[in-house]
């Protein structure tokens, strides 16, 4: 079991950093890209092993990736998009969409529609994770501004 998680950690780090490079991320940001992707994917995998629904797992993972990216963005004074993109990529429902397509190609439209709806739900879950993190971040920002004014 530990070996499985170590494999997942290493491969998700490499994949996220490689995606950062494919998007021309600055060299100094690559390690952080890999880290954000690694944490998000590890959470996703662990939640899946705990029999949590894929949609819920995706919300949590996308939320964490964006929170970590916000932290890095503030720390290194770099646009948040540099860190968040490569972390979100592994969560994109490629497998489900592929299965939906395979059923389309075999003329089994009832199953294709089911899987397509699932892929759509997972994309919505990524959106929800991003949204929640954005909201929390704005609340924190407002709170810290009002606190510094009242001092």
């Amino acid at each position: 079991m530990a070996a499985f998680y170590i494999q997942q950690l290493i491969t998700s780090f490499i994949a996220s950093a490689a995606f950062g490079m494919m998007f021309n991320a600055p060299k100094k940001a690559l390690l952080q890209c890999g880290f954000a992707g690694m944490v998000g994917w590890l959470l996703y995998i662990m939640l899946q092993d705990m029999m949590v629904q894929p949609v819920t797992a995706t919300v949590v993972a996308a939320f964490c990736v964006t929170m970590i990216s916000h932290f890095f963005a503030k720390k290194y004074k770099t646009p948040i998009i540099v860190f968040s993109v490569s972390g979100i990529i592994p969560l994109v429902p490629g497998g489900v969409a592929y299965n939906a397509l395979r059923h389309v190609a075999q003329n089994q439209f009832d199953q294709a529609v089911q899987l397509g709806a699932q892929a759509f739900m997972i994309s919505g879950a990524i959106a929800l994770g991003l949204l929640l993190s954005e909201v929390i971040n704005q609340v924190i920002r407002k709170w810290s501004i009002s606190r510094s004014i009242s001092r």
Partner: protein
Amino acid sequence: MNDLLKREHDIIKVCLLAGKIMLQSGAETYRVEDTMMRIAAAYGVENSHSYMTPTGIIFSVEEPQHITRLIRISDRTTNLYKIDQVNSVSRRVSIGELTIEEARTALEKIEHEPAIYPTWLLILLSAVASGCFLIMFRGIWPDFIPAAIAGGLGFSCFVFMHRVIPVRFFAEFSGALLIGIASVWMVRYGFGHQLDMIIISSVMPLVPGLLITNAIRDLMAGHLISGLSKGAEAFVTSFAIGAGIAFTLSF
């Protein structure tokens, strides 16, 4: 008065150049608008308005004279490095470190800067990423190399076709088609084992991840037209990939 007008024109040019570079590199709409208005404000133009869609920017300044300019964006790629560079220029402008002329030369230098990683490295990276995705999706280690080969082939086909024929849809379609054909062949001749896994992981480098996240962020920030059109672009890309794969699977 003439000097003031010339200064206003120069400010607008700098703002538009910054906006153009950011939009072409794939920044979120709200960040582009924010950057342009910050630069304008740093040079003393308080009332500026900008409106943008993924295909163009309209920028307007009210004082001392009303001037509106339009710039057309035809080609969009993903270049996070340039977004970061323009961001730091705008930061330096707003603390008063750069004059208008200096900011313009800095931005022009960023615009013509070549890609930081060479193409062969990108192809190699896409191969490695495909292999890693195979393991992440609970595939088996013997399939690592077949997935890497299929992913590398598909991505290089995409890059090559995009250079020859400037139609993105076709480039993505042919990349996915090559991935499908290569995977089916490798599985048929016993080199690969799980066809589904190999195809899913080697398609990942073509997936429009940046577009999807940007579309969501734009929609949330209230930039409805940009959000919808970026979503449409992401949908077209996914459709191209799907069509390429479905085409191979139907045989």
